């Protein structure tokens, strides 16, 4: 949920909205927001699974250091949702495991 009226920062300005697709579902986000914030604003807190125990993970430090908020963004695995800004049409998927770097045989 958005904080529309902020006691210090005032009313939220009418920023442009963008649509991003989380697991195929369209979500509305505000331009200038990070992917992590956009998801949380839409009630999504779980961003992926831990690699060993497969436990739910989400935003922790919001500062690019902890690597807890990794997600697959526009098909690229292990992007920090706290540091990536939303773009219209962006696709976002949960992080489900180690990146698979194979393209086609022999890398060409």
């Amino acid at each position, binding site marked *: *949920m958005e*904080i529309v009226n*902020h006691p210090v920062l005032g009313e939220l300005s009418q920023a442009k909205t963008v649509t991003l697709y989380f697991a195929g579902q369209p979500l509305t986000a505000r331009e200038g927001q990070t992917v992590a*914030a956009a998801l949380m604003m839409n009630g999504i807190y779980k961003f992926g699974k831990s690699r060993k125990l497969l436990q739910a993970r*989400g935003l*922790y*430090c*919001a500062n*690019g250091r902890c690597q807890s908020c990794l997600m697959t963004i526009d098909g690229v695995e292990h992007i920090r949702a706290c540091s990536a*800004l939303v773009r219209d049409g962006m696709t976002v998927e949960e992080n489900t495991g180690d990146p698979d770097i194979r393209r086609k045989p022999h890398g060409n």
Partner: protein
Amino acid sequence: METEVLILGGGPSGLAAAYEVASRGHGVMIVDEAWALGGQLRQQTQIIDPIPAPFTGLRGFQLAETLVERLKEFPVEYLLKHEFIGLFADGSAGVSGGEKILRISAKCFVVATGAAESARHFPGWTLPGVMTIGAAQILINRERIYPGKTGLVVGSSDMALEITRQMHDVGINVIGVVEPTSQILAKDGKIVSSLQETGIPVLLQTEVVAVSGSGKVETVLLSSGNKPGVETDCQVDFVCIDGGRHPILEPFSIMNCPLRYEKELGGWLPSYNGKLQSTNSGIFVAGQAAGVTCQAGVVLTGAIAGINAVDYLENGTAEARESCKQVYWDELKRIESTQTPEVWQARMSHMG
């Protein structure tokens, strides 16, 4: 790429250092991994107090804007969204904006990379919905979203109580601040009384036994030292961890700057002398990287490091610069030794 002074970190100390260098006619480049300047001030909505005269009465984000604004008349170069990733063998810095490695050679560095939040561990602290107190502040003031509706704060530093008050002010139900020790850690009486006005209780000698929930925080189990054996269940949808802050060390490690431990400055930090110069002579230290302190300390150490960098470039000092430094040092002493005397003492002993 080339510059005279390369400043790592575009927060308040880096910006203050840049001003001192640029206003004296030397080249400066600022590298920051964020997409905006201002560092952690960007999400701070409280009035920064104490702070040196030109900045009196400004809120954190306004202070950031002011520090950025006054650099506009100088040809400062900025590399935003660029991460400092290491050093080449010849001492030039490698930074990356995600496409390639840029090589920047500089005559000297000001490392103003700030502090990071320390963690606290309890069962369930990895669950979505458990975040650092600083993350919660970013969400409410920068991202303008609620981290949750009902939350709990673990830890009672000045920063934690300040942000708890801000969460309350935007309409979040903070059910309490939990502090495992027997006293509130915050040192600023104004911050403590500001929290007390809200009626949010600070639960001393209380620990988090566990946080649980299905895929997200739902319940916190607390135990109080006052009532051994009794555990209290609280329904919350987020938990903030305040473990204090510590200087970020990675840049110093790879720059071969020896480290020393000073508890009151946030633990391990680079050794530096009275010029805020690390043992590696071309590297100056500023802001929280030079010891966790108040915002005034951050800005002032940045300014002092900046002037010292100029001395370094010019192979000696000048009277005007000396007296300017003296003013900053006096100010730093006045503020730190009244606000946080232990920080000032630790800084003096650290500089040797």
